[in-house]
């Protein structure tokens, strides 16, 4: 994974290098450090206030963050750069609509669909990762190609406001 760019051009350098797709989780699980940096930008530039993420020692039990959004429709899409592998320096930019990271609950209430989690798994023990769940997979059609050992991500035919 490469940096994440906000609509206003602000860049967030993501500490994690690995992205995992998991259709078994509704919301994404991201490292606490990235979660806090991202929340800070949303708070400073977009008037979103959320509970601060707490470090999770283990397990996947996390509570999602209730937030207040000053103007939900002003939230930007996030441009996320993903690399095919360690040798890929350019990568591909994916525009994540606001619906992939924030849910509008009406009356200024909203819910962050990214949860802090520092769990470590199997082959990548010792490294942090972004686990993308259904919130992400609704925006991206995913193709799993065993023959060529690759995963394809392409903007889904679903429509989004942002």
């Amino acid at each position, binding site marked *: 994974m490469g940096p994440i760019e906000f609509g206003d051009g602000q860049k967030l350098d993501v500490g994690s290098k690995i992205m995992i797709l998991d*259709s078994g989780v509704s919301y994404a699980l991201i490292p606490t450090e990235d979660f806090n940096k991202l929340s800070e930008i949303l708070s400073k530039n977009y008037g979103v206030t959320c509970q601060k993420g707490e470090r999770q020692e283990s397990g996947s039990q996390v509570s999602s963050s209730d937030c207040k959004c000053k103007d939900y429709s002003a939230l930007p899409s996030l441009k996320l750069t993903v690399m095919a592998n360690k040798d890929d320096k350019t990568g591909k930019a994916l525009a994540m609509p606001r*619906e992939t990271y924030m849910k509008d609950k009406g009356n200024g209430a909203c819910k962050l669909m990214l949860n802090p989690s520092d769990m470590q798994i199997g082959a990548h023990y010792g490294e942090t990762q972004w686990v993308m769940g*259904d919130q992400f*997979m*609704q*925006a991206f*059609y*995913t*193709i*799993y*190609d*065993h*023959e060529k*050992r690759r995963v*394809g991500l*392409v*903007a*889904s*035919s*679903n429509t*989004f406001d942002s």
Partner: protein
Amino acid sequence: MSGATFLAVDEASDIDKDRFSGIVGLSPLSDVKRMPAFVEQIAELGGVGGKNFIKPTFSIYLSNKESEPGKITFGGYDLAKYAQ
């Protein structure tokens, strides 16, 4: 698809509340030699198109509307239908 190998389970616990009646593992390679993974099997058996017609590939489309179901395509993908 005929000639596929699968595992029959006659007792299961804690899944009675779920609205499914089976589990399909989508791991690309089986670690049990005499039991090839489903993804290996669809490629080898070929399904309706005959042997080697279907690729060991699958793709997932998740709908964002309650009224519309998601789709899994085994053996390939359909960009015209599910991508922009």
